[in-house]
């Protein structure tokens, strides 16, 4: 692994994001969608109903940001370079596929985490400032906030590997992006089940899910890098 090469890919990616209107729009709109829904729910709640929130953990819904945003960006990562014809020159350099994939993944993780935490912070601040105080204290509970902080990178990691894997095997950017949404569906479903109170968020559940996700995040590139077939990516046929 060469840190210089990984850094070169990350820097290049971040520069490209900034100048890509559709990516900037995705980064702006997705978080807003996931911010507005829980806030409306919370702000419209009268103080007397604060008790109903106890087991629903409404803020968990916001984990949709670190799930869906990185998936969308990661799905774009390999296939877009292939479609623009920029993959071939990169692969003529001494780069290893693991370095390329890690660079791509980190370039998604950085803005994904930054935006997730930013939006989450904004939500907490506005709840603390503007919601009924009974509601606010029901929503803003330490274990949930900690869970939120911890699960944000764990979920983002999973989404990124699924997205990169799909991207490495797709021939079309749009198809890749649609598939990546499906890929992050399990995470969305678990989050939603908790948010709607179907599953109770216990410490045991959190630890189990967290350990599973951590394993996948750390080992992810082992699964993903074999999917990156130079020959297929350049010629469209399998080696």
């Amino acid at each position, binding site marked *: 692994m060469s840190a210089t090469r990984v*850094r070169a890919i990350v820097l290049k990616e971040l520069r*490209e994001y900034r100048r*890509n209107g559709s990516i900037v729009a995705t980064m702006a709109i997705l978080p807003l969608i996931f911010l507005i829904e829980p806030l409306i729910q919370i702000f419209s709640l009268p103080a007397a109903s604060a008790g109903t929130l106890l087991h629903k953990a409404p803020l968990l819904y916001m984990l949709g940001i670190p799930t869906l945003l990185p998936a969308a960006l990661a799905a774009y990562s390999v296939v877009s370079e292939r479609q*623009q014809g920029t993959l*071939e020159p990169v692969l003529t350099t001494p*780069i290893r596929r693991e370095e390329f994939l890690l660079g791509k993944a980190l370039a998604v993780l950085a803005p994904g985490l930054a935006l997730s935490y930013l939006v989450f912070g904004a939500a907490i601040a506005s709840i603390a400032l503007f919601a009924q105080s009974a509601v606010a204290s029901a929503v803003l509970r330490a274990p949930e906030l900690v869970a939120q902080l911890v699960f944000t990178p764990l979920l983002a990691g999973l989404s990124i590997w699924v997205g990169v894997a799909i991207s490495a095997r797709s021939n079309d950017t749009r198809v890749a992006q649609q598939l990546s949404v499906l890929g992050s569906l399990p995470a969305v479903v678990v989050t939603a089940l908790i948010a709607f109170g179907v599953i109770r968020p216990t410490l045991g559940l959190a630890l189990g899910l967290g350990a599973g996700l951590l394993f996948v995040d750390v080992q992810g590139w082992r699964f993903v890098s074999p999917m990156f077939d130079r020959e297929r990516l350049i010629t469209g046929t399998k*080696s």
Partner: protein
Amino acid sequence: MNPDPSSAPGGKTNTAALAVEHLSKSFGERVAFRDVSFEVGYGEVFGFLGPNGAGKTTTVRTLGTLIGPTSGSATVAGVPLTPENGVEIRRRIAIMPELPGLYLRLTVTENLECFAGLYESPDPRERIDAALGAVNLADRAGDPCGALSKGLRQRVALARALLGDPQVLFLDEPTSGLDPVAARDVHELIDELRQRGVTIFLTTHRLEEAERLCDRVAILNTTLRMIGRPDDLRDQLFAKTITARTLKPLPDPDGVFGGVAGVDGWHADGSGGYAIAVSDSTVAAPAITRALVDAGADVLSIGESRHSLEDVYLELIDEDAELQTGPG
């Protein structure tokens, strides 16, 4: 700065920059190139010619470790071409692909910065400046690549290939789409790289370019048709010809040329001259001149007509086309 070419892993001392043996590549049923063998020495400029679809780009991609050969073997910059050696080979070579493949949203400098990083260049700033200078693009360094013309993008791709200080440089049609001045600049750059000892593998459709720049050329048409110095290919394929031009047509050309030693035959060239096939022009040319004067002809000009590399190429490829359509 080039690593010692003899220090290849495997301990063997390799004198050839490229050694290719019976290399073939097929995409399913479609054969891209078959049973190709050749060697290129260090510091050589090697031309790789052939019609569209001949397998040139596929050969470059195969030697550049982007795709694997179907069969055969090769050594690239002293390193055996195997899947495990991909990184080691790519460290020693650079490829300017057929299409520039630039990040269009990034500026010229940003594109080059990315690749200087990928080559782990120790002094990226200086390298980038040198590469930009070499292709005369210093004044466009801050422009987004998307705003550059086709030829300018081509030059950025060339600059990018120079960043890694390669021992072997593959150029896949580097001058296609360039204006005459820019093409000449690229030719000068190739000459300069040759002087620095860089081995250059050049595919091109510009035959006069290959003729001028290349020490040796190979003509590929799925299989390797011919390989050698442009002069030798000419001599192998064509008899030497002397063209004589006279003020008035000769009354008896057979009588004039038939008696001259070293003349193998002649024909009127259709524009008032005579094309005389000879085995050795240094003997035949003076003898023909004397014969013409003796016959009382008013000689306007006499000289050896040289077949160009283009003649060689067209002759070979036409032969292939005839073989394919079959006689009759």
